């Protein structure tokens, strides 16, 4: 499972500078201002449209109102944490199909399991390695485009 993802990440990482879906809208749910700023700017540099939310509840609301193509979800969030936000996102029919990439601080085996359990489509660790993350984003965008 992981191996496949990594090889896919490798393939797409070559395309990192030139996203296939220009202007795809990505919702970044992140409470830390600097992390949010970095992610936003780096994604925008690569041509994505970025909308932001600062906690899980706002993230849920934005996912409904903005209908982004993908959600980058931090896990330790105030009000509603990333797990619960993802769970609810995947429960609601209108947001169910939006792919979610969880961002955890440290790759622990338990995190990955919880990630799958909560319904995340993929996960990555912070600090973000932008090329790898873009690879994952592109892979998921491709997949949802195919469906």
């Amino acid at each position, binding site marked *: *499972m*992981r*191996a496949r993802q*990594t*090889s896919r990440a*490798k393939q797409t990482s070559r395309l990192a500078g030139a996203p296939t879906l220009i202007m795809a809208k990505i919702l970044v749910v992140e409470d*830390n201002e*600097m*992390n949010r700023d*970095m*992610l936003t*700017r*780096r994604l925008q*540099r690569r041509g994505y449209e970025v909308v932001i939310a600062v906690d*899980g509840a706002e993230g849920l609301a934005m996912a409904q109102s903005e209908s982004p193509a993908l959600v980058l979800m931090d896990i*330790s969030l105030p*009000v*509603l*944490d990333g*797990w*619960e936000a993802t769970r609810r996102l995947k*429960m609601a029919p209108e947001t169910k199909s939006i792919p979610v990439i969880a961002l955890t*601080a*440290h*790759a*622990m*085996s*338990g995190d*990955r*399991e919880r990630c*799958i*359990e909560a*319904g995340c489509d993929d996960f990555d660790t*912070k*600090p*973000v390695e*932008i090329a790898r993350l873009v690879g994952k984003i592109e892979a998921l965008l491709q997949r949802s485009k195919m469906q």
Partner: protein
Amino acid sequence: MPAFRQTTIKRKLIALIMLTSSVALLVAFAFMIASDYLSFRSRMVRDLRTLAAVVGTNGSSALDFDDEEFATKTLAALAATPNITTAAIYTKDGRVLAEYLRDNQSESPPPQPGPERYLFKHGYLTLFHPILRGEERIGSIYLQSTLHEMNVRLMRYGLIGGAIVLGASLIAFLFSSRLQRVISQPILSLAHTAKVVSEQKDYSLRAEKRTDDEIGFLIDRFNEMLAQIEVHEKEIQEVNEQLVQSEQRARAATQAKSHFLANMSHELRTPLNAIIGYSEMLQEEAQDAGQESFIPDLKKINRSGRHLLELINDVLDLSKIEAGKMELYLETFDISNLLEDVSNTVQLLVQKNSNVLEVRCPANLGAMRADMTKVRQSLFNLLSNASKFTKNGKINLEAARELSPTKSDWIVFRVSDTGIGMTPEQQDRVFEAFSQADASTARDFGGTGLGLTITKTFCRMMGGDVTLTSSPGKGTTFIIRLPTEVREPDAESAAPSDSVAARLNMEGKPVLVIDDDADTRQVLKRFLNRKGFSVECASNGEEGLRLAKELHPMAIILDVMMPGMDGWAVLSTLKSKPDLSDIPVVMLTIVDDKNLGYTLGASDYMIKPVDRERLTEILAKFRDISSPRSALVVDDEEADRKMLTQILEKEHWSVIQAEDGVVALEQVAKHRPDLILLDLMMPRMNGYQFVTELHKHDDWRSIPIIVVTAKDMSTEERIALDGYVEKVLPKHALTQDSLLGEIQDLIAACVHAKQAAQNKPVV
């Protein structure tokens, strides 16, 4: 004799006493008989002599006249003495003058007189006696007497003696049976005490002393020994208790340390993220803006940041290991893919010291089942180590399958370098935490020195190990050996939610999951446990049917594609058995063949990936709850009240809300809830007052209460609630998710405790 040695002391004593008394009796009796026999014999001889003399005197005149008739008459008088069988009178020249035969059986007298003496022979006493007149011998007389009388007498003596011996033995037995207790009883009671002491390990027992003899002495010594053991035991116990306490303290300290480290690591990582991220971003922007000269410095910032991150991650791993919180996540993965992945990741590090990495991996290596993240991290640690300590050299990464005829196979990873190597002393310490080969190495080569410790722990967790061979100046080879199929660690490290699930087990019937894929089983089990279902798993159809028969589960979740007996076969078998056909079966599969499923009798049909909500709903339908559980949520904050209500309703509770203690009491009076979630700070009547009021009613005292508060409680406030509420959950410190988990766990525990002890107050 061995038999005697084995017999009990009681029997030995009886036997000894009886033997002694019988022997004494027999000896005495034998002497008596012997002396009686001898005196009887001499009396018989005397009597016979007297008789011979009398008859001789009577018969002397017959001899004088050689009168045969008179002699015969004289002898005939012997008929009065019944023991005389034969008699004869001989003349002086030895001729038989007359003879007397008692009856036909009597033997004839000898034709010639023998020497004049008595003789016991062939059961007779015979006597030749001279017949004298004055000094002159005029003939002789022969008398034969039977010994019948003596034999009878002897026989009677024997009988009497036997009876006496027998009677005496009996009396001796009775006496000895009683008397042996004097000796055996204290010994037996001592033995019994010893047995009880050794069985119950109760060293406060004492043997009872009844006598002042050697046994009394023995008992005294035994008791002294017990007293000494008791003292020792007490000392050992005290030391043990101290040990347990200090161990608990040490463990708590380690956990506190690990907790602190984990928190610190998190706090450190947040600003570090910014350093790494912004330095990377600035590199990109510097490049775009043509400010190339900034780039090397930005790279340094970025690299140092990443190094620091690595250190923090290692420290965190180690603290998790120490706190026993490191878990295994097992999955099956392709080994060559992993090697490729790791070698790609480590490539930059390898090239930094102008090293060459060579990966050797047989084409047919296949897959293994292990915690891939940990295997990868272990290999990465070894490879980055090798890269650090090697310059202009070669680093080899090899993997091979090691076949074992008896046990399961092993996968062996070998990382060798041509670097600086290690001395034997360095090799000894290399796996210890915080011990790089040399203090200066840390400066020269970087790293925490934790990588190898972590690697070793990971390998051991997975049932393998890591070893090394090295010689200074020539290079080092690290070898990781892992089982091809790593097994789950024992259940003792299971998550606390599992133990709640185990308690719930008693509450209702389990859900049976039949699926050949271990990951699916594990994920379903965890998820359903969280939802309050107990779960049993079977990895194939046959096992599934066996468990279904054994457990009669509440419902069965059944996979279709399984090796051997597939899901359809299992389903039709289940439905064909009258005792199993009532168990609802939910098909959970990637095969979309609903019609076949429903035709065969499935209650529901779900297609993977699992829609958890729907699965919960379906199972909740089957769940046999006698009455719907009701909860009262007491909180003045409407938002909090709503949130708690939502959580509970998701778990199929019926929820009543109250905004303060007064309303809550009214609600309780209207309908007694099964659970109360209580805020403390409320207008009109606060949580403390509410609890006090509630406890005035006998009927309400047993309602479990969970306090959910935003208040930082003092010790006194906690004590005030102690014994009244099940648990205090702080609102602010918990995320929604963990709050949910806590509440679910407590609900499960409370419901169980309540059911176990219906009207007993829950403490």
